[in-house]
């Protein structure tokens, strides 16, 4: 298993998604709406893809249950965001993975038990960390009212996901 590759990809993902800004210091510039929408959609797309892989590939009932929830929740957050974008008179961009989501999903696709579950939790903890940073950033400083509200509604959902993923990652 390409452990180091996975970690590098995950770290790059975190930085790209804005994980570097998840500190108590104020960001120097509010995140542009376009950038936020693409980042949030890329995050949802990765979550759904990784969950679909996990449902089939994992034999662990906890992984499968979590993955089912990821599909439900991230489908919902994605729809909520796109509705908000339209409500503000804009056209939502096509839903697509970004480079790091692609790398993470690609790494996951090559794994089997028992490495699969470990990697899935590790990726989920990292990915939700980054996603939370992005959502919180736009939720507090974003320019568009509707989209800011969508981000605000996503924050507690992602916080819950992150907590679960971190717990599972820490478990022996």
């Amino acid at each position, binding site marked *: 298993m390409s452990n180091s590759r996975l970690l590098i990809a995950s770290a790059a993902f975190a930085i790209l998604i804005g994980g570097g800004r998840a500190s108590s210091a104020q960001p120097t510039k509010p995140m542009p709406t376009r950038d936020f929408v693409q980042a949030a959609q890329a995050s949802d797309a990765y979550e759904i*893809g990784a969950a*679909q892989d996990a449902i089939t*590939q994992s034999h662990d009932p906890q992984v499968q249950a979590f993955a089912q929830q990821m599909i439900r929740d991230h489908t919902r957050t994605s729809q909520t965001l796109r509705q908000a974008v339209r409500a503000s008179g804009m056209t939502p961009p096509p839903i*697509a993975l970004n480079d790091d989501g692609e790398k993470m999903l*690609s790494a996951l*696709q*090559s794994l089997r038990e028992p490495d699969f579950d470990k990697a899935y939790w590790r990726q989920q903890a990292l990915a939700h960390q980054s996603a939370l940073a992005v959502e919180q950033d736009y939720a507090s400083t974003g320019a568009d009212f509707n989209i800011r509200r969508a981000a605000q509604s996503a924050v507690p959902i992602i916080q819950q996901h992150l907590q679960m993923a971190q717990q599972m990652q820490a478990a022996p």
Partner: protein
Amino acid sequence: MEDTTRRQLMTIATAGVAASVATSAGAQPEQQPRGGKQNPRDKYPKPPFPPQSQPFPGLAGQMTPRPDHGELSYVGSGRLRGRKALITGGDSGMGRAAAIAYAREGADVAINYLPAEEPDAREVVELIRRAGRTAVPIPGDLRSADFCRSLVDQAVQGLGGLDTVVSNAGHQKSNASILDISDEAFDWTIKTNIYAPFWIIKAALPHLQPGSVIIGTTSEQAYDPSSDLYDYAQTKAATMNYVKSLAKQLGPKGIRVNGVAPGPIWTPLQVSGGASEGKVVTFGATAPLGRPGQPAELAGIYVRLAEDDGSYTTGNIYGAGGGQGQP
């Protein structure tokens, strides 16, 4: 075309070819090339796919959704008129797409496949004959040097010559760890993917006149291998490499050698062990086009590399990767 309709039409066209498609002998469902343009993202099915697995080698006819090899869509225009082609792995996947396209471009086609793939091969033979060409089915396992030599003999006899060799058959098995690969399993991959092309090309060469072509199916795996394809990926790198050395060796003989490097393509290789179950469900999700490729989308490459119009292309690898990977 909406997916359900396309699937129904394909099932009719291929499963009951002789009876159901009401055209005269040799004619095709569509006479005119389609032209125009479509959003490539929407042309074909996207992941997630239903979880599925088949025992090796697997049948295209049993996949959900069925792969598209160009049965309904490929329209030829005489680009390979008078040509005589041998295609290994011609029952499904890119080999099948090439076989259909070659026949519709005017070539006679011999296909090799494993005996277990007979149901798929029957459909391809029928499609070649409906295009008005000679079809020569030659089942057998490529892991034997004797069979490879016999394969070429039978192809030359059945076609009345040989000028196009498409070494496309491949064995792929995903293993998370090198420790999971037995000697026998490693051998299986190397024999099928490296030895067989060697034996076949050697046997074919005495028959290949100047202007003949050899085409090897390589893969994006040759350039950026997946962690779970340690054995398969290196054979694709070997294929990419032999294309280039042989092109140099055979250039003075006027024989061109080229390769095709696909990204993730929806074929039985994936559902019969080539990919993990989770990868099958999300197959192609990593590609910027958002879906895996279909064999039909590579048929034109195999035609291009074979046709006389492409006479300066040799030692080259043409890709179709959906936006990911090399070349």
